[in-house]
């Protein structure tokens, strides 16, 4: 209830077209020369003092990338990206390269995070209103600036650090798992990421350990014309559990910025990974100028029996989103879940969905997708459910609802369903609806403005999915929903 009210508050307090997170932090940064060739890859690797095997891995990816072409099968349209016109590495300058404590962090950076509402300092978290405990690994452009709660996690045996650090401290784990879920040549953007990834989070939860707190990364794209290529790798060993939150914001920019992240999850026997994303990158202005291109590859591998991976996403930002968090259900009786809220407004284009690949016996999956299109945006759900010949007893339930606001937007549902054995059961439900005049009038008669009414109705529409989010995230998500729907009515 409080959250709904806050939603309503937020709608009122923000101007149309004013992207709340549109500020630029003025700090010096160190960049690789513009453009992309082998020397860029070497530069990035050298900056991170990477061992030879890591450099080779990158170079191999780069050589393969040069032979690939950009995919064009999604519904999104955008001007051709000039890959030579981007910076592939950018780090805040004062920080040097090695690990550091919070006190080494540029105060300007800390202020940026404060503006974003991220509790970087442990004291702040502990002094917070709620008793929630979140460990934050903040990525500012390409480098992880600080990792909190490390000590306590260490005690539990949980490894949570920037991936650039894990390459040095846990090379055996990185070697074993990196690229094992999203192969280097998986797709154009994943291959590019493999060549030039800058940083990201690494998580390893040992057998039988329940991670004592939610882990979180906030991404922020600050530097102009910098592609962001995070690489996240999360491993839950046998019987382990971890919940990971990813939040993103980027300052307001005129030029489009490329974002091509790769996230790999591995769940062994009886392990569970819950991965939640709230993505509110700059969507561009109402005319479609500027905004982030978000081409992301996220995939989870339910490698072990009875393992479970669950993706929850709230996507309100980016000019273009191209994203399909997926599950490979390899282990017997493993389970994959995908809960999604995707909101598009203005000229945003969203092409998102999931893939559930049932390979093991008695594997189950569940897909709940809520797409909301407003303004002149286009919102496509694209989902694949596949059962292998050997995946007997596989079951999927898909529910895919679209809500249209106004009549200049579009919603599309593109399901691909394929069962190669007779004992699989796939259920698919889909609806498309509009907010009716009757509903709006009813709410307004009770005192809500048209925008407040819309936010309320939309929050009702996405309720099933919001309930999947950790509490604090759900509140933030409700606010974002309200903000992203500004100017969608009237």
């Amino acid at each position, binding site marked *: *209830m*409080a959250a*709904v*009210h806050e939603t*309503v508050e937020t709608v009122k307090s923000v101007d149309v077209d004013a992207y709340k997170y549109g500020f630029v932090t003025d700090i010096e940064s160190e960049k690789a020369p513009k453009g992309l060739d082998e020397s860029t890859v070497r530069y990035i690797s050298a900056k991170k003092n990477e061992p030879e095997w890591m450099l080779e891995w990158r170079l191999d990816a780069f050589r393969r990338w040069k032979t690939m072409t950009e995919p064009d099968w999604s519904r999104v349209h955008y001007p051709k990206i000039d890959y030579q016109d981007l910076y592939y590495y950018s780090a805040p300058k004062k920080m040097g390269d090695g690990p550091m404590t919070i006190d080494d962090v540029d105060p300007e950076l800390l202020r940026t995070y404060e503006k974003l509402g991220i509790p970087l300092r442990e004291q702040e978290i502990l002094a917070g209103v709620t008793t929630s405990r979140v460990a934050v690994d903040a990525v500012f452009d390409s480098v992880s600036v600080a990792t909190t709660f490390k000590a306590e996690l260490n005690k539990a045996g949980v490894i949570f650090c920037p991936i650039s650090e894990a390459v040095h401290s846990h090379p055996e784990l990185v070697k074993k798992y990196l690229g094992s879920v999203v192969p280097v040549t998986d797709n154009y953007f994943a291959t590019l990421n493999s060549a030039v990834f800058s940083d990201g989070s690494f998580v390893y939860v040992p057998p039988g350990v329940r991670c004592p707190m939610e882990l979180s990364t906030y991404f922020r794209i600050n530097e102009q014309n910098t592609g962001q290529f995070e690489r996240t790798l999360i491993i839950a060993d046998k019987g382990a559990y971890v919940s990971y939150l990813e939040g993103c914001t980027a300052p307001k920019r005129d030029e489009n910025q490329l974002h091509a992240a790769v996230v790999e999850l591995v769940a062994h026997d009886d392990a569970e990974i819950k991965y939640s994303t709230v993505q509110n990158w700059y969507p561009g202005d109402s005319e479609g100028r500027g905004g982030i291109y978000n081409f992301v590859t996220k995939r989870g591998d339910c490698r072990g029996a009875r393992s479970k991976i669950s993706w929850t996403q709230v996507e309100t930002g980016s000019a273009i989103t191209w994203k399909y968090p997926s599950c490979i259900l390899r282990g017997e009786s493993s389970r994959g879940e995908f809960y999604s809220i995707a909101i598009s407004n203005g000229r945003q284009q969203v092409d998102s969905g999931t893939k559930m690949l049932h390979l093991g016996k008695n594997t189950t999956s569940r897909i709940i997708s809520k797409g909301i299109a407003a303004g002149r945006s286009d919102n496509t759900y694209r989902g694949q459910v596949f059962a292998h010949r050997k995946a007997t007893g596989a079951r999927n339930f898909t529910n895919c609802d679209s809500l249209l606001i106004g009549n200049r937007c579009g919603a599309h549902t593109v399901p691909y369903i394929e069962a190669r054995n007779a004992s699989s059961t796939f259920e698919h439900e889909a609806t498309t609806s509009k907010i*009716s*005049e*009757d*509903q709006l*009038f*009813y*709410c*307004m*008669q*009770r*005192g*809500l*403005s*048209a925008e*407040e*009414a819309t936010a*309320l*109705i939309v*929050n*009702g*529409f*996405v*309720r*099933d999915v919001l309930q999947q989010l950790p509490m604090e995230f759900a509140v933030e998500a409700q606010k974002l929903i309200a903000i992203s729907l500004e100017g969608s009515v009237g």
Partner: protein
Amino acid sequence: MLEIKNLHVRIDDKKILNGLTLTVKPGEVAAIMGPNGSGKSTLSYVIAGRQDYEVTEGEILLDGVNILELDAHERAAKGLFLAFQYPIEIPGVTTMTFLKASLNAQRKQRGEAELSTPDFMKKVRAAADKLGVPQEMLRRPLNVGFSGGEKKRLEVLQMFLLEPRYGILDETDSGLDIDALRIVSEGVNALRSPTRGFLVITHYQRLLDHIVPDVVHVMSRGQIVKTGGKELALELEKNGYRDYVTEAA
């Protein structure tokens, strides 16, 4: 005072209200009766500020101020409440959430502080008890799957919570069982006060047995064709509308 003066309204070229004039004074309960399709619900929508209707002539004054230029939510904050003939379902939004959002939206427009959650809960409980609305219902999505009578009760509960200056009840009695009719009427009567007015639209005398009106208006073809005391309703019950319908032609 709620004054409707010479109101002409149409929708898609169809004239529905034809120079309707009507006044509801503070402290007064005015009943409107009239045949199906005579424009009673249309009148209530237009007063509340529904957009698809075109007001071609006339005005609606709330305490002397023309409200025709105000949006529906602004009129609500000024104290206009409409209990709908057909309440609307809002999936996924729990009734409780909706009640709190509306109450605070109105308070905010009026520059009043928001109600804290405990204060709000207290208020809702009191209203729910009074109207025999089970708490469990308030946790369900608004009006979704509610029976006809439950929806009507909830409309009155909302009126209780929002404490309007003028309440318009559009056939709130239809769908109510005998006990509910009594409970809801008692609720409305409890709200009666020298500063609050009601416009009660109904087809049946039985509601007016419980909520005794000060005046009764007969509406036909978008006009008030007859005004009288509470005995007028009894007469209509006996003779129907034939005398008045021809009069209006």
